[in-house]
């Protein structure tokens, strides 16, 4: 059995420091296993949020060696164990205790997005007909497990703390899932430009890099939304065309 040196952030509401722990591990173990071993054997009061241990609940988000990751999906044999491994809470959210942060700002952000508004059913029995090609695009966005790692890594939130002006990548993915849905009739472009601050994203793709569900956040969700904002607010030609054409969303196309 090999021994890993773990530097784990301990403390409350932002105050704290790294504490050093040594822990035996086997190659198949993930970082969450090591945290649990330390919790069982050395620090019973170590706070860590987790649930499924299968990369599906999105609870165990933290930063391992400075990179936002799921504790339960990061195998020990994928990290260099010759050096101490740092484990700390996400930096873009208010700290609560040890590895736990208050991610509730995300739930408020989500509420600010206009909900799904489907067109009238296509058939008398209240059902709709959709082309596979049309639904394919939004399928990817539905894989999101709301781990908020993308929110954590995004410099607009992480470094500039603009939670009030920018909904962040996770919620742009959510908006894209609704806005590009073939049945949806709501128009969210003005919100995107104004309250949700899509223009604050500078497409540096850190969110895409950390997403454990491999959602192509920047290329498939954010940039297409930016293009829709350009259509509606910046491109003189599409703005002009809009005067002569009824709003596509009212037609449900």
């Amino acid at each position, binding site marked *: 059995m090999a021994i890993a040196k773990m530097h784990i952030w301990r403390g409350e*509401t*932002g105050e704290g420091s790294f504490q050093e722990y040594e822990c035996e591990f086997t190659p198949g173990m993930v970082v969450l296993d090591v945290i649990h071993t330390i919790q069982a054997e050395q620090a019973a009061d170590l706070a860590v949020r987790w649930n499924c241990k299968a990369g599906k609940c999105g609870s165990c988000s933290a*930063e391992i*060696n*400075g*990179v*936002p990751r799921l504790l339960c999906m990061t195998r020990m044999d994928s990290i260099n164990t010759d050096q101490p491994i*740092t484990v*700390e809470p996400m*930096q*873009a959210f*208010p*700290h609560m205790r040890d590895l736990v942060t*208050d991610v*509730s*700002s995300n739930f*408020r*952000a989500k*509420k*600010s997005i206009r909900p799904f508004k489907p067109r009238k059913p296509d058939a008398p029995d209240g059902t709709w007909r959709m*082309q596979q*090609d*049309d639904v394919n*695009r939004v399928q990817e966005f539905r894989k999101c497990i709301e781990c908020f790692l993308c929110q954590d*890594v995004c*410099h*607009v939130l992480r*470094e*500039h*703390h603009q*939670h*009030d002006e920018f*909904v962040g990548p996770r919620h742009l993915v959510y908006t894209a899932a609704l*806005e*590009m*849905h*073939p049945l949806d009739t709501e128009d969210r472009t003005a919100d995107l430009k104004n*309250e949700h*601050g899509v*223009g*604050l*994203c*500078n*497409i*540096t793709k*850190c969110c895409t*890099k950390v997403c454990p569900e491999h959602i192509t956040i*920047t*290329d498939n969700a954010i*940039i*297409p939304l*930016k*293009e*829709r904002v*350009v*259509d509606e607010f*910046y*491109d003189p030609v599409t703005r002009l065309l809009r005067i002569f054409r009824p709003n*596509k969303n009212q037609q449900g*196309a």
Partner: protein
Amino acid sequence: MSQAETRIALPQRHFGETRRKDAWWLQPLVVAGVLSAFIVYSTWAALQGAHYSFAGYLSPFYSPEIFGNSDHAWFGPWPLWWPSWIPYSPAFLILWAPGGFRFTCYYYRGAYYKAFWASPSNCTVGKPHKKYTGERSFPLILQNIHRYFLYLALIFLVFLSIDVYHGMWFPTAGSGAEFGIGVGTLVLLVNVLLLGSYTLGCHSLRHLIGGRKDCVSKAVGGAMPYKCVSCLNRKHMLCAWLSLFWVGFTDFYIRMLSMGYFTDWRIL
């Protein structure tokens, strides 16, 4: 939306501060190096105003040649009214278009914000800026012009394809020309193919061709064009770098031929 009622000061990092242990500085450094090298070379080549054509070949930095001294010029030699204190080169008239296209490209934007502006240098690395307005206000809001540069870039693809055709004709002893294929013809062809794969994978094109519709299948031509552009779009970064390198190399190759340093091998 309002922020957490119990707002606790979030950590503030200084420039370059990070807990990352990998060589996070390498990527922005390489991007900055390669982009700078390209900018220096292309500016130098554009300033020359000479050695940009050889036989039927025309350097892509000078295509289309609106005024100029080679056989490719549309309207003959440089106009006399051009103020003498402005240096003249056929490249100046056109290079702003492909330059603007790359400058406003979504991929390059993300890359040079990191490499040249440290915004951020790399993921989870502290930034040097206190204030941040992103692409929401002046000057970066101007990046939204990208689709207009795309329209120009699509037209340039036509010109560059015609240049490949011209590159298949070689002057003969008389004043005629004969058909042939030289290494230069292939260099020009690869250039169009790479620039095509870059331009046709553009995010704005992807939007225009179907992405703007909630039902992509209802776009003109159905979902297929959208799928094709999306396919190239997935390789957009790779195409961006390959086409950048090759367009510079194409100019270099023709320049070396014209200056007599290289010999162009005829294949056919």
